[in-house]
């Protein structure tokens, strides 16, 4: 093939490969590979030496042979070939990195080093005509990058001592029997180190120049020196490293590797703090020595878990809409299970969990319709620590088998029928340390004796308030409107079962004997004051709930303001007063008219003369918001709309200092019989000066009015 063509093909390949390389490099964590690519990855150590040799050759060429350059096309073959190989090697390296777990810091260095080699090699093709001195500088940088970063690769595969003289390796002997004649080191420390540390600090890899497989090597320490002794005020190096936060770069074991458990952490700490002794036997130590106790109790995992990936099974298959099965936390081996919504409970869901029974430590089956068969399944979950069987319909007899579950510490059986005798029997030889037995009729006295008998078990009985006598809440009058146009239905409610609501409509207070009992909705056709009160045996009867309903059978033909309301509360003009819509509790909702600096005055007019008997105003009173009751209502009548005659005035008490009011109130004024008019003028006076005790003393009070009812 023509040499030019060859170069061109080579260049094209590189242009394809290098962007790919960059992309995979950046997203190397996220990228996925298949087995074939992984196999290609294995070629990385095989081919990586080619571009190193080529690269060094090119450096020498750039440094020393620029006065005798190769013929252009030949030179390009060398440069393109080198670049192509560098890129290939880097790509294979990326595949290889997926295969095994390496020290992430070194791996990252190597990865980016490799990529820069590929890219510098690439640039060589295009810097042909720049001055020689620049080329030499680039060549030197290239040489450094080449040697330094490829050495990182060697560290990855051969351990940190790749270039130092080999030392003989001693593997800790396997411990065959377990009794107190062993040292703490043999019983606990060595197994921990073997399982969690030796993969990097052992016979195979020697990171940081540290090996931990024998006492001599441990004492020898690593590149930062001794690891067991506290230096001045600092903790021993070993303890420093294992106690650093996981995210810290120097934390051991490194993030991603199998971590120390709390127990192992404690053991290592206590052992190092006690002097890191290799020879003292457990039997020689004090029986109360916590280190000895921990060491005796320590059970090395039977199978060392290899690799850094969480090998715990995926729990997705066990989960459903009505059942959650989760690890307690990320990296935990322990599982908690919650069942929800009894109507969807199926026994199969529970029996499926048997597959993971040894990992379940917490089970919540509150409210599930369980049978004895279900319980037989639960009993198989021998590692269960916490069990919630509140309101499950099981009886105390049914749950006897739970007593065989030695790990079960916390049991809740709220709602279960039980008495002192049955519970005494149940708690005999039970493994529990806490039991919740609340139900709505148990009381403390009944179980007092039990608590003293079983001091080790915390028996939580809960509160029973049956005997306490408290006050009922008032009935709820369910009718938003208080205006009777022709007639109005009113519903009265009380939420507590067994409560009797009595009512009156004549203004008197309801009593427990003679007042009628509310049974069906009430039907009102005239002005009514409805008073209701709730009664129930064993309870104090409620306060009175009352509401006034106004018949409003007269509707004026016209209504207009004499004085305008405050700008902030204009309602929807004068017709607000006769729109049959009440403003309710919220005085800034636009359904209210308010006056403060001016006196409220308005006129209603009819086409025919009419005799008014009574006018009711619905107003809002809230002393916290400076809204006081209407002081007085003056009604005047006129037939020509010019000359008005005073008909009546009604005055109302203001508030006392102790009053805290925030409610709708009605203010009425009657009109003496005898006269009929076409026009009526209303004047509503507000308090001009708030009293001294009020925070706004001296300033005028507001009045808020939303409706006028006429009779």
């Amino acid at each position, binding site marked *: 093939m023509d040499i030019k063509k060859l170069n061109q093909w080579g260049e094209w390949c590189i242009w394809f490969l290098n*962007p790919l390389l960059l992309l995979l490099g950046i997203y190397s964590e996220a990228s*996925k590979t298949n087995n074939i690519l992984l196999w290609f990855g294995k070629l990385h150590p095989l081919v990586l030496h080619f571009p190193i040799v080529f690269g060094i050759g090119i450096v020498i060429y750039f440094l020393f042979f620029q006065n005798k350059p190769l013929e252009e096309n030949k030179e390009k073959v060398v440069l393109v070939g080198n670049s192509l190989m560098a890129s290939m090697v880097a790509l294979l390296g990326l595949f290889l990195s997926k295969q095994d777990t390496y020290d992430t810091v070194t791996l990252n260095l190597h990865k980016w080093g490799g990529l820069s080699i590929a890219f510098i090699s690439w640039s060589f093709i295009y810097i042909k005509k720049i001055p020689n001195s620049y080329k030499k500088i680039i060549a030197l940088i290239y040489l450094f990058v080449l040697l330094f970063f490829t050495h990182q690769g060697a560290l990855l595969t051969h351990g940190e001592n790749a270039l130092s003289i080999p030392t003989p390796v001693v593997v800790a002997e396997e411990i065959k029997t377990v009794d107190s004649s062993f040292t703490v080191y043999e019983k606990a420390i060595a197994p921990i180190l073997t399982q969690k540390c030796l993969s990097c600090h052992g016979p195979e890899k020697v990171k940081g120049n540290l090996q931990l497989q024998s006492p001599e090597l441990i004492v020898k320490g690593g590149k930062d020196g001794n690891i067991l002794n506290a230096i001045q005020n600092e903790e021993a190096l070993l303890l420093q490293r294992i106690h650093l936060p996981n995210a810290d770069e120097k934390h051991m074991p490194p993030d991603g590797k199998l971590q120390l458990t709390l127990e192992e952490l404690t053991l290592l700490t206590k052992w190092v703090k006690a002097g890191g002794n290799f020879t003292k036997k457990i039997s020689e130590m004090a029986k109360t020595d916590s280190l000895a106790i921990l060491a005796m109790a320590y059970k090395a995992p039977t199978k060392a878990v290899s690799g850094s990936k969480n090998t715990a099974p995926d729990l997705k298959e066990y989960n459903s809409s009505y059942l959650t099965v989760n690890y307690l936390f990320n990296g935990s081996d322990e599982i908690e299970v919650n069942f929800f*919504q009894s109507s969807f409970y199926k026994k199969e869901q529970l029996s499926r969990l048997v597959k993971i029974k040894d990992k379940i430590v917490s089970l919540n089956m509150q409210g599930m319709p369980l049978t004895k068969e279900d319980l037989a399944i639960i009993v198989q979950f021998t590692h269960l620590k916490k069990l919630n069987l509140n309101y499950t319909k099981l009886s105390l007899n049914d749950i006897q088998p739970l007593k065989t579950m030695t790990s079960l510490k916390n049991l809740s059986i709220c709602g279960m029928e039980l008495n002192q005798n049955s519970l005494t029997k149940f708690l005999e030889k039970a493994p529990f340390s806490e039991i919740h037995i*609340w139900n709505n009729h148990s009381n403390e006295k009944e179980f007092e004796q039990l608590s003293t008998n079983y001091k080790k078990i915390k028996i939580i009985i809960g509160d029973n*308030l*049956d005997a306490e006598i408290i006050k009922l*809440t008032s009935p709820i009058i369910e009718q938003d409107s208080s205006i009777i146009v022709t007639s109005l239905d009113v519903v009265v409610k009380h939420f507590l079962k067994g409560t009797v609501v009595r009512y009156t409509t004549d203004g008197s207070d309801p009593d427990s004997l003679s007042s009628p009992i509310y049974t069906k909705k009430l039907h009102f056709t005239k002005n009514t004051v409805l008073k209701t009160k709730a009664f129930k045996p064993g309870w104090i009867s409620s306060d009175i709930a009352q509401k006034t309903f106004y018949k409003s059978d007269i509707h004026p033909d016209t209504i207009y303001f004499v004085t305008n309301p405050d700008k902030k509360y204009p309602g929807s003009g004068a017709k607000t007063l006769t729109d049959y819509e009440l403003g309710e509790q919220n005085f800034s909702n636009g359904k209210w008219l308010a006056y403060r600096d001016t006196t409220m005055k308005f006129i209603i007019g009819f086409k025919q003369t009419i005799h008014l008997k009574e006018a009711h105003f619905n107003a809002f009173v809230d002393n916290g918001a400076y809204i006081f009751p209407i002081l007085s209502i003056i009604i005047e009548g006129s037939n020509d709309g010019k000359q008005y005659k005073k008909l009546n005035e009604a005055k109302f008490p203001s508030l006392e200092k102790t009053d805290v009011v925030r409610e709708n109130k009605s203010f009425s004024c009657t009109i003496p019989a005898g006269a009929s008019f076409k026009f009526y003028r209303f004047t509503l006076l507000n308090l001009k000066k708030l009293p001294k005790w009020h925070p706004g003393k001296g300033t005028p009070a507001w009045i808020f009015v939303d409706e006028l009812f006429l009779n």
Partner: protein
Amino acid sequence: MNEFLEHGLNQNRRKFLSKLSLGIGGLALGSLMIPGLFDASNEEELFANVLPHFAPKAKRVIYLFQNGAPSQLDLYDYKPMLQKMHGQDLPASIRNGQRLTGMTANQAKFPLVGTKFNFAQHGTSGAWFGETIPHIASMSDDLCIIRTMYTEAINHDPALTFFQTGAQVGNRPSMGSWVSYGLGSENKNLPAFCVLLSKGKGNGQGVYSKLWNNGFLDSIHQGVQFSSGEEPVKYLTDPEFIDRGDKRKILDEIASLNQEAYKNIGDPEIVTKIQQYELAYRMQMAVPEITSLQNEPESIVKMYGPECLAPGTYAANCLLARKLSENGVRFVQLYHQGWDSHGNLPTELMGQCKDVDRPSAALIKDLKQRGLLDETLVIWGGEFGRTNYCQGALTKDNYGRDHHPRAFTIWMAGGGVKPGVYGETDDFGYNINSLPVHVHDFHATVMHLMGIDHERFTFKHQGRRFRLTDVAGKVVNEIIS
């Protein structure tokens, strides 16, 4: 590119561009090997496998927010000094020129107010409680009382927003949304984050839906507000002529249409919509079962107080909170309005306490007797405290207190907190003497109790990783058991 350089590099634009097409081929091949490279953020999914970071002490939270800021000086932080100096001016050395609100900054005098209420010590920690909250006081041995909370905001809305979202501006996700995002729902038939509102008779301050907003998180994490009526979740019941099978079919059809739209447009909100319809469908079954309070035994009714049967009261919300929490809702957020006693404090406080005292204590007792308190964290507190001096006129038995962000009291119970009293304020209850707890610290601690490292729990939005604790917050290890 200048010609000299172009020549030196032996490369020109045409060659570069034509070869770049090969590079794009390389990129395309590479992208095949990186699943999800061009997908929208899938951080969410990653979290599901990573959280909790460590063993959680609390699986669920019930936050009894006392909106408007209850007076710590009349409830928890007993200061005999204030009674001794009643009516005298607040020493300038104590106030130290610190800012006040616009409501009292112009007052000529700042007369100190000793509480009108009697205090007594309760429980083994000897914590002080005012006489208006006897039931809460009786739970003293379960309470972890923090007397040295402090915040940065001095007005309700920013302070409330700060407590709920970790920032004073209202565009960040609420605490409950973060928890929903990080831990998901325990019970798939209920939202992970529920909100319940109630109103006291005292001077009220508004609560707005931004407080339980999802911010930049997916809107599925928004708090679901239960309404105060008899039907806590509106529009959940089907019309009579639609049975559940039909409903299923309708939803499946809508979902397939939405799927189609998502394929075309790719808006993640469409996926959220599908999920929300599904959740609502499952809630149709779950919610009525949980929210019907009528079946509660009478002794429970008495425990929470008979108001607990009237929907929309604080008592009812406490009872509902217990039921939701018991059924796996991660975060139940209550708000009780009416604590903003600028004037008439004694009367208003009594009214508020009457609403709150019995149900708050009942909630703890109830969780405890069911064996749930150890895994449920109950929090009680407002957005700041109230001043030791009087706002408005001070009379023999009436006074008001202004906002005070520099030291106030909240308490927590259950969920892995250590009962006792934490921190100490000065004799005037104005400044913190020792062990201050900032709002960020509080958030960090709550997250820690739920098994979350607040520093690692982030969401990337507009180029920045956000946390509930922003760039601050220390876990208060001393209050963790």
